[in-house]
């Protein structure tokens, strides 16, 4: 146990522990110190100099994010000296960030605007100096707008230290420095969006599609507009509206989307159940046929798929041929559902709400098309949806929860936990366990629902799973930064789940800002609670999903709707605008 200490901040006695920074102790004691480059999941950089404080009897100001507190010290967060430095640094930073507030998804909770207001500062004290800087676009998923960058470098650290991709670099020095994609031909972006998630000023961000979705809604005509909500979004969107972390708000999401003008809202949890059915089947096939190639690897994370296609195309045969939940559900809506509802597939427009930026890239993959149609037409991040809700003055907090569609049900508990690292694995194991089960021991089989050994926030989770006598070595890679050790020891495993973002989709690049591992674990708890509360907790018990898969097979649609293939990828051309 670290030693307890007491320090004084602005005259108030504050308890903390030896080894904590001044900022940590201040925040734990509900004392506000502004910060921009500080992020609890990144290394301390102390470069924005906005969190400076005065320590009694010390001449130089100190950055509270980097300086460890010592017992008995006295801190001033608002002395004249602190005010002067903090305000000057803020004014300098404001002039780095070209204000593009009108369409910015962060504008309702912008750190820069909030601080300007709080300290009564003009954002225009100095003239914006980066107006002419360009925007680097990475496929159709992520972008970095140099005209808004405040040089905090969080994006670089997220890309290099967390994800270990090293795609972003700092070019030049002094005022001329710029964040740029690397020229290294052996490195490419995987679109995970962790840069965006860690950017305090939306310089790194998703490539917006909310404008196009607004147009679609405005010019609806005879189209049927369908929104789909991803498993993890229900427990995170509330944060955008001041609701508690981890609260399940799927009902309010449905209501909000309908208010925005969507005809139907469907739950990607259903798509996840379909994915589980398809993937569990393949897992069992591969286990029985040694030539088929083990380990089997999950493919529902599009950033991971891009990673493998670019960095390790030799391993492509290990990826499950199963499409991802969003693509499954989109495809099902445009085939099965359209048929049942007697609606022409081309008259359906599908917008999915995702915790992810790479999902934008996923829907652009031509091999996923069903005939001429894309399974999903547009992807919005959670941030984009929240922005649209706010923009349209919809009071999310007060919305009465609504149900999504009935023909496509809301899915099982196994589908809900898809949002967390280990969830895909656990869902597949629940179903594989059931299928493989010896009928004589059926009762015991069905009792194995939870596979807690694959849950949690560890980087790599390994487990030996007993599937009715069959021993399965599984690994769950939580965050692409942890992939290397697993790929180097591939022969150890039978089944591997990989999620590019730490925590899984729940920590995805399209989630609300701020996000941190602490917040991620609160969101995750919400998902597992949802799984516990629900009656049907396995994909194979979701009669609707089983029925849809059967229907697709009977109508020879299973191949075009349920399966896909992968190919080696070359480095993207960088789009500079």
């Amino acid at each position, binding site marked *: 146990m670290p030693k307890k200490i007491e320090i004084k901040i602005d005259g108030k006695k504050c308890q903390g522990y030896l080894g904590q920074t001044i900022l940590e102790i201040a925040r734990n004691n509900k004392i506000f110190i502004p910060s921009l480059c500080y992020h609890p999941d990144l290394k*301390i950089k102390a470069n924005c100099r906005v969190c400076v404080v005065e320590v009694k009897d010390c001449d130089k100001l100190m950055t509270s994010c980097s300086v460890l507190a010592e017992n008995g010290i006295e801190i001033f967060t608002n002395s004249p000296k602190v005010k002067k430095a903090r305000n000057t640094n803020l004014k300098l930073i404001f002039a780095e960030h070209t204000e593009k507030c009108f369409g910015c998804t962060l504008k309702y909770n912008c750190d820069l605007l909030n601080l300007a207001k709080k300290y009564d500062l003009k954002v225009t004290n100095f003239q914006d100096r980066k107006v002419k800087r360009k925007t680097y676009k990475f496929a159709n998923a992520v972008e970095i707008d140099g005209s808004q960058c405040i040089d905090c470098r969080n994006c670089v650290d997220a890309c290099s230290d967390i994800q270990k991709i090293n795609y972003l670099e700092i070019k030049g020095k002094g005022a001329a420095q710029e964040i740029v994609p690397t020229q290294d031909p052996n490195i490419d972006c995987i679109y995970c969006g962790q840069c965006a998630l860690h950017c305090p000023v939306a310089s790194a961000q998703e490539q917006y599609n909310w404008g196009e979705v607004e147009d679609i809604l405005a010019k609806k005509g005879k189209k049927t507009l369908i929104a789909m909500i991803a498993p993890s979004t229900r427990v995170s969107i509330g944060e955008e509206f001041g609701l508690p972390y981890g609260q399940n708000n799927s009902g309010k999401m449905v209501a909000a989307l309908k208010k925005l003008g969507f005809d139907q809202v469907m739950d990607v949890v259903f798509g996840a159940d379909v994915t589980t059915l398809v993937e569990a089947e393949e897992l069992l096939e591969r286990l029985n046929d040694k030539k088929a190639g083990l380990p089997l690897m999950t493919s529902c994370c599009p950033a991971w798929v891009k990673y493998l296609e670019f960095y390790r195309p030799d391993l492509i045969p290990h990826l499950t041929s199963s499409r991802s939940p969003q693509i499954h559900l989109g495809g099902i809506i445009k085939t099965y559902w359209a048929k049942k509802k007697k609606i022409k597939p081309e008259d359906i427009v599908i917008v999915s709400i995702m915790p992810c930026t790479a999902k934008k890239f996923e829907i652009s993959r031509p091999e996923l098309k069903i005939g001429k149609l894309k399974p999903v037409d547009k992807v919005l991040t959670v941030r984009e949806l929240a922005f649209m809700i706010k923009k349209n003055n919809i009071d999310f907090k007060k919305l009465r929860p609504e149900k999504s569609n009935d023909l496509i049900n809301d899915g099982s508990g196994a589908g809900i936990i898809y949002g967390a690292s280990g969830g895909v694995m656990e869902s597949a194991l629940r179903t594989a366990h059931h299928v493989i089960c010896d009928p004589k021991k059926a009762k015991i089989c069905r009792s194995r629902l939870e596979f807690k050994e694959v849950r949690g926030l560890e980087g790599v989770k390994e487990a030996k799973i007993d599937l009715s006598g069959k021993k399965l070595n599984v690994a769950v890679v939580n965050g692409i930064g942890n992939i290397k050790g697993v790929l180097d020891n591939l022969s150890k495993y039978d089944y591997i789940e990989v999620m590019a973002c730490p925590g899984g989709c729940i920590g995805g690049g399209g989630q609300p800002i701020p996000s941190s591992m602490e917040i991620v674990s609160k969101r995750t708890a919400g998902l597992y609670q949802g799984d516990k509360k629900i009656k049907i907790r396995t994909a194979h018990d979701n009669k609707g999903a089983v029925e849809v898969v059967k229907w697709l097979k009977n109508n020879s649609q299973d191949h075009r709707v349920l399966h896909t293939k992968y190919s080696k990828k070359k480095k993207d051309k960088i789009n500079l605008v």
Partner: protein
Amino acid sequence: MSIIKKIEKACLLGRGGAGFPTHIKWQSVAKAKSKTKYLIINGAEGEPGIYKDGYIIKNLLKEFSIGVKIASDTIKATKIYFYLNGKYYDIYKNKIIKEFNKAGLKGKFEIIKKPKGAGYIGGEESTILNIIEGGRAEPRLRPPFPTEKGLFGQPTLINNIETLYDVYLVSINKFSGERFYSINIENKNKGVYSLPDDLSIKDVLIKTKNYPKYDFFVQVGGDASGEVFNQKQLRRKVPGAGSITIYKLSNHRPEKLVNYWLSFFADNSCGQCTPCREGTYRLLELFKNKRSYLKDVSDFVDLCKNLETSSFCALGACAPIAILSYFKNVYPNLCQKK
């Protein structure tokens, strides 16, 4: 008596500019339990107006090499990196290798040329660690200090060339507290002189026969970051890495000088922290817009103060020293005379 005790008794201070007691650094690295330890010789000499390290390499290489050997033996260095100013590297590399080998350091050292773009900050010690490790030319957060966790995370002793030369003198009981002064008139190098380190500016100028007959002012401790004093303020010691630059009061061009200082720091800011990256940029911008009225602009004062109080490293904190002291000590007089 151990060499560290001797150094302590001799009150030897680091000659790189910061003046940190040498024996404390040595003790800390010598005591560290790590199997791998490094010695880095800082030969960056990036401050304009100072060239005493070059002088030592040229004239006192043998003595300096012995100092290096003593340091390496004392801390039990695994390897020595001699980080060297590009100009000196090109001229003296082979001579240094020869002399180091003679001093018994064969196979133990590597000479690293200071990269071209590293600039002024490329002489700051934690920046040197980054450069040798292949990183950006930027200072590191402290703590940890290089003596605890330096190069590749190992305890590292970083000493300036002159400091190690002085160690040699200490080792043969010949250290008398002298240091090297670099003296310049305008931009011309007048020479390097060894004199007691507690002399006043005035005494140094008189003893070296450089005391001008005309009205003048001086900048001491480096042409970029050194403080500026008028003729009545010469009773103080020479700080930093020991340079005195004389400017003729009547024909110096204030705007050119101010522009030089501001441009120097704007060009040499590494870009890491806001006060320096943005502050030096805005100061230069203000100057270009307002010229000599600069000192009356409140933003100007705020930016300078902000560099002093909230910069990440000493480069930022030192950036406004020259210009502020020039406005305080020289410019008002100049106005009166005109």
